[in-house]
């Protein structure tokens, strides 16, 4: 009997377990999936927790509920991957052998990468919101916070869901307005990018949102250090931004096991060199990478993992049948962006095409407005939670084209 081993049972890993189980003969293939956490977190929901829109319990369910019964689910941390021997060693020393390895170990925020970020103010006046602990702690903080300088900072450009910090700024504006204390809060968005928006069409269509909402943007700010005593951010070129409450998006890295196994890119961030079209490892032909764990130049987002999964299932089947890997991922991403007060916008893009305005055809739902701010997009974002739990991670068909389509987009 041959063995497929999946590392990581998050969004990408769970989708792959479901798709592989459906596609392969269980008498010939044994599928094992490993994750250190028995709970599955609906990560897009983390954004809403600080503002009381979702409660912590809304975003957690047991992982086993979303994995096929015939898939062997092992709860353990991965200690080391030994691709030369087709082996994975778990924390307790036990050894798993594989014929095909799918790495879906994701990314983690690592505040320790930045001096002073995880210092004495951590979870007192400095919070992240991409972790369950961070977002629930921040929710408590906001309940009683009396105002001042709210600074949202991206410590790095390559981060999970690059639009989420922007959504956080928009939702914070609406939250404080609804609480009747917007005049007591300055919102500053501090980014290492050239602006809050960086793509020409998105900038043209959405930049005025920041002005309307009175959000100050400080671009080209690359965080070197957080001075806890003075409560300031310090950049590499010695600019400073003072804060009372810092919402930080720390440096993102790949899983420790990737770094410990020397499988990451040479930059030490732990993202795995991956063919950006086939999703095969650049080093080992029986190793495939999906989701946030890759180093491909696509967004680290659930929609990307979903479109990748549609490609990867084909390529893994081709691989085990000894055929060339013909399915090609085009970098497709599709994201709702919350803009506050029950409205949102929508972007759809890939490796080569920036987010464009127009209409996004959605079978059974009707066209959605691209780069438009409206209520329908917000309803789409909220409805997505149901789609995620009931369709997406269990690998059911979602009526959106895997490759980005130009239908409805306005190119000029």
């Amino acid at each position, binding site marked *: 009997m041959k063995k497929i081993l999946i590392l990581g049972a998050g969004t990408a890993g769970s989708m792959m377990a479901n798709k592989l189980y459906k596609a392969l003969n269980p008498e010939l293939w044994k599928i094992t999936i490993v994750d250190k956490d028995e709970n599955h977190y609906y990560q897009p929901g983390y954004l809403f927790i600080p503002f009381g829109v979702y409660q912590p319990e809304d975003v957690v369910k047991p992982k086993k509920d979303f994995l096929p019964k015939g898939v062997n689910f092992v709860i353990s941390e991965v200690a080391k991957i030994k691709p030369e021997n087709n082996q994975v060693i778990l924390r307790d020393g036990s050894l798993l052998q594989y014929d095909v390895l799918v790495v879906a170990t994701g990314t983690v925020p690592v505040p320790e990468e930045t001096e002073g970020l995880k210092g004495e103010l951590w979870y007192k006046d400095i919070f992240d919101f991409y972790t369950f602990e961070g977002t629930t702690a921040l929710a408590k903080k906001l309940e009683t916070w009396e105002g001042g300088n709210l600074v949202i900072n991206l410590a790095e450009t390559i981060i999970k869901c690059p639009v989420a910090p922007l959504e956080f700024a928009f939702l914070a504006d609406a939250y404080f307005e609804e609480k009747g204390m917007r005049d007591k809060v300055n919102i500053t968005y501090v980014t290492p990018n050239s602006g809050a928006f960086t*793509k020409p069409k998105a900038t043209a269509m959405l930049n005025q949102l920041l002005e309307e909402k009175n959000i100050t943007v400080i671009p080209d700010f690359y965080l070197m250090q957080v001075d806890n005593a003075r409560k300031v951010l310090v950049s590499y070129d010695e600019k400073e931004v003072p804060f009372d409450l810092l919402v930080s998006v720390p440096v993102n890295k790949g899983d420790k096991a990737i770094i410990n196994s020397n499988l990451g890119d040479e930059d030490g961030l732990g993202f795995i060199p991956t063919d950006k079209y086939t999703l095969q490892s650049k080093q080992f032909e029986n190793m495939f990478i999906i989701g946030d764990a890759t180093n491909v130049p696509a967004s680290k987002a659930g929609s990307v993992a979903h479109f990748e999964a549609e490609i990867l299932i084909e390529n893994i089947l081709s691989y085990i049948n000894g055929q060339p890997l013909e399915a090609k991922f085009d970098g497709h991403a599709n994201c709702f962006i919350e803009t506050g007060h029950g409205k949102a916008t929508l972007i759809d893009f890939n490796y080569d095409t920036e987010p464009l305005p127009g209409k996004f055809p959605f079978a059974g739902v009707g066209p959605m407005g691209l780069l438009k701010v409206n209520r329908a997009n917000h309803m789409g974002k909220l409805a997505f939670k149901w789609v995620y739990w009931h369709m997406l991670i269990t690998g059911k068909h979602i009526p959106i084209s895997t490759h980005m389509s130009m239908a409805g987009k306005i190119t000029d």
Partner: protein
Amino acid sequence: METLVNTAIEFTAEGYLKNMDQWTPELARELAAKEGITLTDKHFEVLNWLREKQKEGVQLSMRKVGASGIVDIKQLYALFPGGPLKISSKLAGIPKPASCV
């Protein structure tokens, strides 16, 4: 500037080369002059590294350049003051470093 005007090299509205294969060291020097930078061998080491990584399809960041072994982040700032990755990408003839929107 003469050479820029007289060639068929195309730039984006923000001044980034549309086709990285049209890049030459001379072009880099001319673009650098516009930014008030005189390119040294160290600058070119960074530019060539960026071009190589871009061809490999790697997503670039300041931290990555800092881990390249060529310069650390402080030195990168000294070479390309203001917005190091933005300016070095422009001079390397590769696309503007951008987020998804």
